[in-house]
């Protein structure tokens, strides 16, 4: 040691940021997917925070339990949270099958990746289907972008049309804000789910084409998986702020 001592300046730097290796040990595309998700999380946060701010600013607000209380094909009313509970379960379940696909990819098991990707796509389709039913139901009741059940009515009819959806004071403005924000936010989320299904189908066909097998890595499944989990994550928040609170 004493004979080969080098001065501090001459030492070769070998820290993670000194060059020669990837400091985060992550592939470029995966980092970019993360950064995209961070920006997307900001968009969704802005939407949800605006919803919260509106709810906070209005003296009264719609009662979610009275708006969402049907189970399509089973009960027309009186069952709050049940249908959205099924939707939440479907999405969490499809998130799990996605992790299982990623896990199978780590082990280079093509058959398992195909199986779990198929389940994930199925879960995604089921979720979007449920959301379509929910939207149709609300649309029939008179809710839509820029519209609530009392739109176009005058006088006492306004309060009468809105009475079934409120427990406290009735407000046309609050019902309108709720309607707009519900369709905007769940619509934006549903759009994300649809894109996710499309990406999953692309990844599935690439797997079937042996693209990843030839490449030697199923990293692409992981990247799309990140996106899919993010969609699930957003739903967790949408569920809380629209249906529970």
């Amino acid at each position, binding site marked *: 040691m004493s004979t080969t001592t080098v001065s501090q300046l001459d030492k070769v730097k070998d820290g993670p940021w000194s060059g020669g290796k990837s*400091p985060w*040990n*992550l592939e470029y595309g995966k980092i970019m997917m993360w950064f995209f998700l961070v920006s997307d999380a900001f968009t969704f946060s802005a939407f949800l925070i605006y919803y919260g701010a509106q709810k906070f600013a209005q003296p009264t607000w719609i009662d979610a339990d009275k708006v969402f209380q049907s189970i399509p094909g089973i009960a027309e009313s009186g069952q709050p949270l049940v249908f959205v509970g099924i939707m939440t379960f479907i999405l969490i379940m499809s998130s799990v099958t996605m992790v299982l696909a990623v*896990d199978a990819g780590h082990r280079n098991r093509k058959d398992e990746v195909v199986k779990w990707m198929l389940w994930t796509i199925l879960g995604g389709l089921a979720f979007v289907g449920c959301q379509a039913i929910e939207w149709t139901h609300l649309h029939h009741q008179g809710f839509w972008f820029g519209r609530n059940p009392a739109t176009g009515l005058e006088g006492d009819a306004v309060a009468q049309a809105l009475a079934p959806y409120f427990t406290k004071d009735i407000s046309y403005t609050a019902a309108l804000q709720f309607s707009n924000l519900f369709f905007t936010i769940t619509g934006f989320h549903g759009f994300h789910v649809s894109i996710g299904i499309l990406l999953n189908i692309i990844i599935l066909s690439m797997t079937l084409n042996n693209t990843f097998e030839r490449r030697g*890595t199923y990293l692409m499944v992981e990247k799309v998986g990140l996106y899919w989990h993010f969609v699930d994550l957003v739903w967790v928040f949408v569920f809380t702020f629209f249906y*529970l609170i």
Partner: protein
Amino acid sequence: MSNHENIATTHDHHDHGGMDKKGIWRVFFILLALTALEFLIALGFVHHWGILQKGIFVNVIYIALTLVKAFYIIAYFMHLKFEKSGFIVCVSIGFIFIVYFIVLMLIEGDYLLYHLQSHPLFPNN
């Protein structure tokens, strides 16, 4: 390109500690249990038995449970817990601004609540 392959191969060997199949299902059951708890509070305690009232207290519980669920999804499903700490800081630090944004919008909402109500131009009924 060579860099990409280098990462891909090292990635397989050590990276995903703690997330085997058993771990995945464990996280799933935690998420399921937390969601079930939310339903128990909403349908059971608030609706059925009327033990709790809708209000700030249950809302805080809901938000806390949501954040725990979010943690499990991000940390385990999205694998962030097993990445390098520099990367974790890099993707999460920006959310300080979201916290700031929430505080700002709550203050704004509070202002509107008290001032629009007494304003003659904006009747709220």
